[in-house]
């Protein structure tokens, strides 16, 4: 996983709440068997509308998505995270994320930042008025900064450490092999097995 320390970039203000993963990446894109090539599927239906914010020329190259509450609801598809990353987003800001989406994003190094809705509103106003305005997401200081905005955010120490170091969860877990083996050896025999009797 790519490490995340601090990132500064232009933003896309997405004034919508309840953006479900079917909107982020529609189901027909899920047939791909790779982790890349999803950029054209990102918000596919909405992008057909020329006035959709992502289509504005001045938003090209933006890397910070500022979204409404309940971002990433619905399906568990990690493709939603890959689509955002493939498109070029490094971080998503919202007042509330769906749990599975949040977990997926942090595992892939896409930093999802929870901020109060007032701060989101401020960032919307700022970046709508000035598309060149930059937003900094500083994971070291756990702070979001932009002109007139300094907002702390929370992320638990463990998740932060893994992001800062770009650590692979599986290697970390395999470091606890002895614990897993010990658990397996005391697991009751009545537990289900997929092997046919």
């Amino acid at each position, binding site marked *: 996983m790519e490490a995340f320390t601090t990132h500064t970039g232009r933003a896309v203000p997405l004034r*919508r*709440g*309840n953006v*479900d993963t*079917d*909107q982020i990446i*529609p*189901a*027909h894109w*899920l*047939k*791909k*068997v*790779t*982790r890349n090539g999803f950029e054209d599927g990102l918000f596919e*239906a909405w992008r057909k509308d020329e006035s959709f914010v992502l289509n504005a020329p001045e938003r090209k190259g933006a890397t910070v998505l500022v979204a*409404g*509450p*309940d971002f990433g*609801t*619905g*399906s*568990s*598809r*990690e*493709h939603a*995270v890959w689509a955002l990353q493939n498109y070029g987003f490094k971080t998503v800001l919202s007042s*509330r994320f*769906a*749990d*599975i989406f949040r*977990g*997926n994003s942090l*595992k*892939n190094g896409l930093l999802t930042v929870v901020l109060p809705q007032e701060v989101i509103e401020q960032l919307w106003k700022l970046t709508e008025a000035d598309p060149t305005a930059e937003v900094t997401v500083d994971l070291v200081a756990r702070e979001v900064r932009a002109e007139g905005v300094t907002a702390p955010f929370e992320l*638990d*120490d*463990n998740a932060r450490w893994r992001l800062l170091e770009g650590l692979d*969860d*599986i290697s*970390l*877990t*395999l470091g*606890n092999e002895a*614990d*897993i083996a010990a*658990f*397996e050896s005391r*697991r*009751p*025999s*009545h*537990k*289900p*097995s*997929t*092997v*046919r009797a």
Partner: protein
Amino acid sequence: MGRTLAEKVWDDHVVRRAEGEPDLLFIDLHLLHEVTSPQAFDGLRMNGRQVRRTDLTIATEDHNTPTLDIDKPIADPVSRTQLETLRKNCAEFGVRLHPLGDVDQGVVHVVGPQLGLTQPGTTVVCGDSHTSTHGAFGALAFGIGTSQVEHVLATQTLPMAPFRTMAVTVDGELPEGVTAKDLILAVIAQIGTGGGQGYVIEYRGSAIEKLSMESRMTICNMSIEAGARAGMIAPDQITFDYLEGRDHAPTGADWDEALAYWKTLRTDEDAVFDHEVRIDADALTPFVTWGTNPGQGAPLSASVPDPASFADPGDRLSAEKALEYMGLTAGQPLREVAVDTVFVGSCTNGRIEDLRAAASVVQGRKIADGVRMLVVPGSVRVALQAVDEGLDKVFTAAGAEWRHAGCSMCLGMNPDQLAPGERSASTSNRNFEGRQGKGGRTHLVSPQVAAATAVLGRLASPADLSDAPVLTEV
């Protein structure tokens, strides 16, 4: 202090607990399907890793599979590649697979329980948000992403963030014609699509205790639509009776031991939930959605709400957008909304009891002119049982299409899709924009409402059918 059911199951699976780290949980059952697994197997290959416990892993094909002509090669080359990739991966890593055409193939959340693999007090994961279905057995069942699928394949464990507990207590008795689907739609409308966020919900109360396993699965299935991490129902005699004798249920001394353990899986009297919601079952009526998320629902007897009536500006905006997308106007009675398509199926309502309920409504009737009704069993075994009971004939005599098992029109990944602007009454779980096909409009309903809607061509419940023409012969 006492513990809740969810906390008990969690505690029994902690492999490692350390200060400042998420608990590492052991996973008893890992279900796989073709959509969220290819990149996970790729990850294993890239790192030279194996599947740690093939004996706790099982795969099936459901999302991409067609429901017609299943003996012919799959027309869409991309779907075909995804299915072939799963077959190749399962063969290479030694994972048991039930492919299209196999008697145990079906929607992954229908297959696990029917094989008896989903058991009380187990941890179940799948790269699919509706894994919450399995909580109906008193299992702690989470939908996970592809990175986590890879993690479970490699280690049979998952580091999991702590959860909060919510009790949804439903007392009383569901009135005649009101189902588990109506109940869960009403719960979601009440707590909102984000209301369950961070919580494991336990459904309890006298109305829940009376429900069959099928109905309990419908309820737990849709926990994710309230944003919950999982949904659970304490196991009881109904659970034990459902499991006994199934392929992978314990037998002999193991059964006795399992049963003794399962009986301990109840929330202690003095346990405290972080949040509690109460619902009166007696007050419920058939419920349908009018919007583009499962929380935008109302009783069938109501009218399309006026967006201006929502106090919260975000809710108002999303209601406005929803009505525009759905082609509805505020104040329009829901009973007057005409549909083109009716879909009975999915992991929410594609089990035998659901098919029986829908069949009992269309029995001896004809579906309305111009309405297409698809009946798609959740698994091959459900299909066989339905054929055994003659339900397929009831459906086809009424003018419905009887299809092969799969996810079908629940999501636009296989040939069963709505055309742009088409409107459906669907027993599935998501009414998101484009979920059933680009531009398609979805109303979520129970199997009974779906069937009555097919007969009248507009949103309706069986109670509305008294005037519908009844044919004397089937």
